[in-house]
């Protein structure tokens, strides 16, 4: 293994400094997209399909245009935009490309699909206009479940996709796996269905767009996680050169993946602004967010696992079907969930034989995209259920069976071809169990209350580089990040990152990395993000990539600038470049005579204002650019979650009494922010396990159009979480950091479900589906107690 290049001697890395975002945010001086008001700004709202599946016979907007306050109304034919099409480089039997029009043209495929855009002088008039639209549909039979989609005589959501199947891949099939199962002393099976969820950022999606005649540019301010990809799609749809589109991102109130795909509404509103030459704002309301935004997580698993008599797993045989809804999302495609599940399912365990089939089916429901964790909450839940079921069958302790199967020797290359870098899989489980034992929860479990303890062991691949994404065979391949650093005349720096904070505090953490590398005060560092004119290119923030990849690029750019500063200083001090060093206090000094130093301000003064003093061959200015990519399979964070639940036999109620998280994300740049990520993630994981679900009736009408029906848990439902840290530094990111954005969400459903099943241990009932139905808990306990 190569020598780690991270440093722990810095003043900033590892310090939970006050977040630089906080002063403006806590004082209400943040600027979110809905805070933006431009002179003459108009407001957009969408005419949306009222039927789940139908042919559009006619779109009549004449009465819309007559509504007082309405300025314009456009159908697909009026705007004439290109489609959004996300592609995989896979053969037709594995992937069927489908186009998503910006506004529905001939066919509507889900309730809430945008059919026309209404532009009015205020949001009220826009909704009045929407009500006046006359859209005639010839209704078609809707497909509202994965099983209905795969039925022999199913209607087709997209004519080009037989059996409504957009993705069908069998990534692995170990030779002889059938013999493994035939000869194994213990085979267990888990069949589970997980609920459709909405990532539910507190701030809904939105955009303000206007054409600037002076810059000959369409300026688009939108709350996206991927500004450059929005630029590409918008330019393509609207027939503009990329230089004619500038996407900037204001403060964001969460994204969680939902804002990591290009939405149709931001394209349509921008196109309307271009057409009208007036600023147009669109703010998604909560009903549209719940019915028409990108959803996630509705998956069905049928998985068998073979074990030997001691509880060592021998093989894994999985069939995964993901109900992706009506359209493939850009840039990830409908393959995002089945490909993730197929590639990563063996999880933290030594699985010697593996076979998997992963499918994405299309249905007449709102489309899906990435949501924090992407498939990992589901397959981790399946793996942990398999472990628990085998433990029960074999009479092995459920924690012990995990120990027997965890990867403990690193690097480990799995049956899935992925190499796992060092982690603390075993150590995190041991510590988590110890904490719960020391706190006495096993004694409480033995009382006459209905109490169970559950665990989940998991890792999370973070820092997917270009190579890792290329294996997915995406046609646009994310991975690298580029950072440009610029020191100004006063010696302070501004640094770009291609990542995009949607609440994770990059202005703080990226600045910590820069300050550490250059020996600056945090206040001397400005982070620039979310502006396609100021940033060469970026892939934004998702897949826990920001600190691992973006943070490494920022560190590399800082080091390059440091080299420039040393070169100039050496010249001015009349010394050899190898004899000067950054002094950790905003200057460069002679290593052997530290009193002789030049501050960055003095060096910058020379670089800009007295360039004639620069060494020969060194040009004026102080800028540096560096990029970073991960060559291998990425780096794996890991954690173990331990949960204690109490069930109420009288109501089926589930209460979480204790939640312990032992996490390892390598070197934490800012431990408090890591803990915030853990807690928020765990809340979303608990939401999936116990509360949230988007359902539809037989006609495809959504049944959770408000937060009364969509049961996002509140502070009253989410327990305090005890967080313990382990640290296994990453050897190939610049700071030893691994990603920390998604782990909480990944681990929580498995641990909660495991705890509920442990509490039901005497009933003979095991629950496998989420969200866990209180009625199912009630019935299990009722049957047992008579």
């Amino acid at each position: 293994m190569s020598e780690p290049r991270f440093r722990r001697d810095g003043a900033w890395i590892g310090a939970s400094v006050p977040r630089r975002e906080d002063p403006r945010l806590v004082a209400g001086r943040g600027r979110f997209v809905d805070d933006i008001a431009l002179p003459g700004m108009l407001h957009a709202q969408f005419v949306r399909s009222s039927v789940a599946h139908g042919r559009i016979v006619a779109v009549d907007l004449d009465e819309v245009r007559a509504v007082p306050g309405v300025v314009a109304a456009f159908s697909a034919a009026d705007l004439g935009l290109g489609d959004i099409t996300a592609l995989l480089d896979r053969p037709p039997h594995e992937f069927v490309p489908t186009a998503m029009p910006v506004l529905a043209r001939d066919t509507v495929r889900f309730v809430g699909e945008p059919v026309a855009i209404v532009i009015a002088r205020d949001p009220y008039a826009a909704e009045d206009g929407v009500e006046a639209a006359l859209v005639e549909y010839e209704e078609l039979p809707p497909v509202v479940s994965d099983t209905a989609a795969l039925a022999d005589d199913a209607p087709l959501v997209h004519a080009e996709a037989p059996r409504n199947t957009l993705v069908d891949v069998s990534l692995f099939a170990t030779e002889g796996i059938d013999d493994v199962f035939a000869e194994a002393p213990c085979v267990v099976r888990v069949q589970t269905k997980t609920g459709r969820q909405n990532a539910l950022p507190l701030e809904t999606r939105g955009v303000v767009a206007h054409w600037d005649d002076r810059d000959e540019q369409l300026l688009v301010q939108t709350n996206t996680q991927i500004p450059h990809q929005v630029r590409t799609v918008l330019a393509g749809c609207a027939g503009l050169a990329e230089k004619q589109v500038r996407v900037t991102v204001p403060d964001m109130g969460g994204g969680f993946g939902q804002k990591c795909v290009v939405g149709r509404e931001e394209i349509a509103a921008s196109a309307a602004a271009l057409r009208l030459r007036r600023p147009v704002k669109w703010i998604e309301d909560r009903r549209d967010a719940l019915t028409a935004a990108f959803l996630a997580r509705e998956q069905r698993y049928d998985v068998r696992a073979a074990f030997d008599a001691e509880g060592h797993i021998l093989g894994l045989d999985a069939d995964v079907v993901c109900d992706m809804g009506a359209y493939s999302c850009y840039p990830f495609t409908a393959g995002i969930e089945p490909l993730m599940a197929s590639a990563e399912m063996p999880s933290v365990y030594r699985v010697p034989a593996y076979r998997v089939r992963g499918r994405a089916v299309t249905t007449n429901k709102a489309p899906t995209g990435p949501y924090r964790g992407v498939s990992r909450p589901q397959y981790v839940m399946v793996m942990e259920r398999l472990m628990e079921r085998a433990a029960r069958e074999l009479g092995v302790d459920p924690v012990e069976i995990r120990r027997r199967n965890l990867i403990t020797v690193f690097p480990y290359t799995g049956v899935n071809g992925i190499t796992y870098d060092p982690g603390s899989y075993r150590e995190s489980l041991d510590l988590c169990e110890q904490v719960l034992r020391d706190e006495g929860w096993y004694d409480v479990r033995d009382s006459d209350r209905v109490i169970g303890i559950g665990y989940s062991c998991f890792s999370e691949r973070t820092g997917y580089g270009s190579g890792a994404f290329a294996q997915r065979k995406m046609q646009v391949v994310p991975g690298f990040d580029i950072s440009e650093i610029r020191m100004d005349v006063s010696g302070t720096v501004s640094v770009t990152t291609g990542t995009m904070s949607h609440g994770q505090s990059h202005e703080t953490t990226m600045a910590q990395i820069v300050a550490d590398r250059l020996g600056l005060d945090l206040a001397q560092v400005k982070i620039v993000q979310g502006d396609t004119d100021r940033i060469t290119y970026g892939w934004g923030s998702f897949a826990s990539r920001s600190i691992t990849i973006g943070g490494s690029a920022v560190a590399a750019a800082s080091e390059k600038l440091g080299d420039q500063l040393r070169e100039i200083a050496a010249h001015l001090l009349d010394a050899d470049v190898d004899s000067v060093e950054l002094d950790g206090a905003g200057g460069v000094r002679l290593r052997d005579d530290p009193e002789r130093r030049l501050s960055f301000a003095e060096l910058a003064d020379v670089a800009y204002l007295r360039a004639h003093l620069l060494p020969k061959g060194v040009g004026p200015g102080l800028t540096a650019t560096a990029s970073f990519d991960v060559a291998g399979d990425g780096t794996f964070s890991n954690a173990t979650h331990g949960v204690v639940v109490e069930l109420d036999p009288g109501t089926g109620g589930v209460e979480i009494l204790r939640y312990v998280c032992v996490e390892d994300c390598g070197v934490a740049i800012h431990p408090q922010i890591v803990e915030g990520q853990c807690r928020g993630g765990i809340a979303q994981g608990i939401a999936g396990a116990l509360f949230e679900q988007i359902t539809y009736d037989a006609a495809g009408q959504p049944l959770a159009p408000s937060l009364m029906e969509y049961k996002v848990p509140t502070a009253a439902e989410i327990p305090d979480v005890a967080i313990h840290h382990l640290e296994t530094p990453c050897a190939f990111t610049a700071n030893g950091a691994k990603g920390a954005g998604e782990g909480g969400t990944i681990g929580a459903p498995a641990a909660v479900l495991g705890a509920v099943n442990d509490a039901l241990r005497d009933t003979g009932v095991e629950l496998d589906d989420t969200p866990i139905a209180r009625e199912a808990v009630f019935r299990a306990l009722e049957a047992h107690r008579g």
Partner: protein
Amino acid sequence: MKPAQFSYHRARSIAGAVGLLTELGDEAKVIAGGQSLVAMMNFRLARPEHLIDISRIPGLDAIARDGDGLRIGALATHHAVETADLGPGFRLLSDAMRWVGHLPIRTRGTVGGSLAHADATAEWCLLAVLLDARIVVEGPAGRRTVEAGDFFQGVFTTALEPDELIVEVLFPRPAPRAVLTEFAERRGDFAIVAAAVDLDAPRVVLGGVAPVPLRVPEAEAVLTQAVSGNEGYSTRIHSRVGAAAAEAIDVRDEPGVSAHYRRGLVRTLVARACEEAATR
């Protein structure tokens, strides 16, 4: 989620509000805290042409003892009741308020508004029936009093005429041994089942099992027997009351909640309400 156009009128007196109601007729809605109405308007499920805002009418938010009874003005907020010292006889009302939505809702939502909206699981509707409340309403013909038992007529339907306004609610008798309890998956949600009992009346009222708050005479009979038989309030009696209530109701399977489960919740919640009330 923006309301359709409406005209806004601010009433400065009860008579003024009634006058506006009479003048504007069916197209007018009274708004107080707006905690149900505004959401319905934002979804355009309600589209009143006129809103008559009564929230600034002076004196309508009073909470005052009246002999053994208690008068609560229509504009008193849930939070005002929650934090008022009502004495042991009406402690039930304060305690029950913790089931009403969340704190921001309780600080705006009003007692009169909740009764007029008449959600069958709303706490005030159950409490009114439980305690034989008299709902005082005023219209063009003056004031009249409607017994709670006659007030709730169906889904979101009350005995209130379109030109009438709830003025206050009179709770005529104290109920020191009465409790309201609920079950929902999330704190603050409308209950799947809500149960309220008064051991002394005796009275058992359910929410979530009928279009209106439902008295359950079969369960009340078990309580009455227990009182007359001097059995005392053992846990076994509580279970019998719960079982009687569960058996008596007419419910059917609904998506996510089977009739069996709903009966189970009734059995549990009624028994628990009795048990808690017995400790008072």
